[in-house]
């Protein structure tokens, strides 16, 4: 319950911090931290306009996309406390509930009949498909290391004892952060600021959404950021008591938001053809983590 409330709270300010970091890095003052939330609130008060060529899928997709991410957030633990939903193998549930939301956003984009949106949907599907092995190998290897299969128990028993676990921690953090950037279609693979439909990935899929639906999709992006930030924070919190973990959690989210902002300000996006190989590197790195863990456990 605690993690659910905290992630929702953080999601209100996460994108604001990212945008503020980007503005400061480029020498501007920038909008207030709550500005993205104000925009979303404005969108929530509007009605939606639906194209005549679309079917019911297009109308229910944003809601399913939003609720799938909310469902995934419920799985996340917070230090000692379990998530709202917690069972053995819940990381598989986590990944596939997110995949369900993504599936609906993809078929909704195809439903509009626009050629641009189909292209964006195809790219998003490809990138999500390439990200999936990285995520599963990573969490699976942590499962082997700790001997448990639910997020709560994995994070509770994962300790930073020897220097090799620090190396694993750094690698896992890097891969999770990159997975977050790819799933949210941010800088190394996609530029949220782009204005050309041909080079868009996520933005082109939501071109036809308006009003309330667009607000839901934008808020989902915020939630996703906060969700992956919580996953990374959990890795380091272990079984500390709550008055350490809550400030630690906010600090990690804040640092993560600043990192995202700095990454977006100072890096150029890859050429579209280079994206696939970059995402595959993440899988290779998680394979390395897997082998290192096998080596620690003396199983190989």
């Amino acid at each position: 319950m605690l993690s659910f409330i905290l992630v929702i709270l953080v999601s209100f300010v996460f994108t604001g911090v990212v945008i503020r970091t980007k503005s400061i890095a480029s020498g501007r003052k920038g909008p207030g931290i709550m500005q993205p939330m104000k925009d979303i609130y404005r969108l929530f008060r509007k009605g939606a306009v639906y194209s005549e060529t679309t079917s019911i899928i297009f109308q229910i997709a944003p809601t399913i996309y939003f609720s799938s991410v909310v469902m995934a957030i419920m799985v996340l633990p917070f230090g000692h406390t379990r998530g709202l939903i917690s069972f053995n193998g819940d990381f598989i549930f986590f990944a596939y509930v997110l995949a369900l939301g993504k599936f609906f956003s993809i078929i909704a984009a195809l439903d509009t009949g626009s050629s641009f949106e189909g292209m964006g949907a195809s790219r998003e599907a490809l990138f999500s498909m390439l990200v999936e092995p990285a995520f599963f190998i990573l969490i699976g290897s942590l499962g082997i290391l700790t001997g448990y299969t639910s997020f709560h128990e994995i994070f509770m028993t994962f300790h930073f004892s020897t220097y090799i676990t620090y190396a694993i921690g750094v690698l896992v953090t890097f891969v999770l952060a990159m997975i977050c950037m790819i799933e949210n279609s941010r800088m190394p693979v996609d530029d949220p600021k782009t204005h050309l439909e041909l080079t868009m990935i996520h933005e082109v899929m939501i071109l036809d959404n308006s009003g309330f639906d667009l607000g839901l999709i934008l808020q989902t992006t915020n939630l996703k950021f906060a969700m992956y930030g919580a996953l990374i924070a959990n890795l380091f919190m272990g079984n500390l008591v709550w008055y350490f973990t809550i400030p630690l959690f906010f600090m990690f989210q804040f640092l993560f938001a600043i990192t995202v902002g700095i990454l977006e300000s100072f890096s150029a996006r890859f050429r579209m053809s280079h994206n696939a190989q970059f995402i595959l590197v993440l899988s290779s790195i998680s394979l390395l983590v897997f082998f290192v863990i096998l080596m620690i456990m003396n199983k190989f």
Partner: protein
Amino acid sequence: MINILLIVFTITLLYFVIANRLITYVNILAFQGVLLFGVAFFELHEINLVNLIFILLETLVIKTFAIPMFLRYVIKKNNITREAEPYLPNFASLIIVTLIIVTTFVVSNVINDPHLNKIYFVVALSTLFSGLYFITTRKKIVTHVICYVIIENGVFILSLAVGAEMPLLVNLGILLDVFVSVFLLGIFINKIGDVMQEMDISELNKLKD
């Protein structure tokens, strides 16, 4: 600590696969030199001082500074194209190199020899095979030399695994560097890049005596 350095060394191999520019290749070589310096420094503290200083100087001075600087100079002097231009797309190369690493893990597991230091064996062998693979898929002569240095780094790691008992073997591994410098001098003196415009090995097919 050695394990972390060796893991980072394997990641540099993956980075080498997706890098596009020759300068990146050279920088990776320099970084690998630093990593090898770290590995040698932590591994070889039991052999005599002169030998140790010789090896550390070799990794730091030759591998990290001399060879990369000379490579940069050669690339600039011979007007070699800055793109690497592999035959295969990087995506396929990445899968193959990952498979090479996985296979060496499996092989070292099958051998299962108590005298074998597994992580050294895996990193050295995967470096060797990836280096060979890089040579076969890159067009330019300079890239061949760069990939040869990578193979040679693999041999160095393998010799370090037994270096505590046999320091002579490490010194023998170092002799390969001399070989590389002969290659480089050959390219430099013959100005292959200038003579043939494109520094491309397919041009060498036209050579006749």
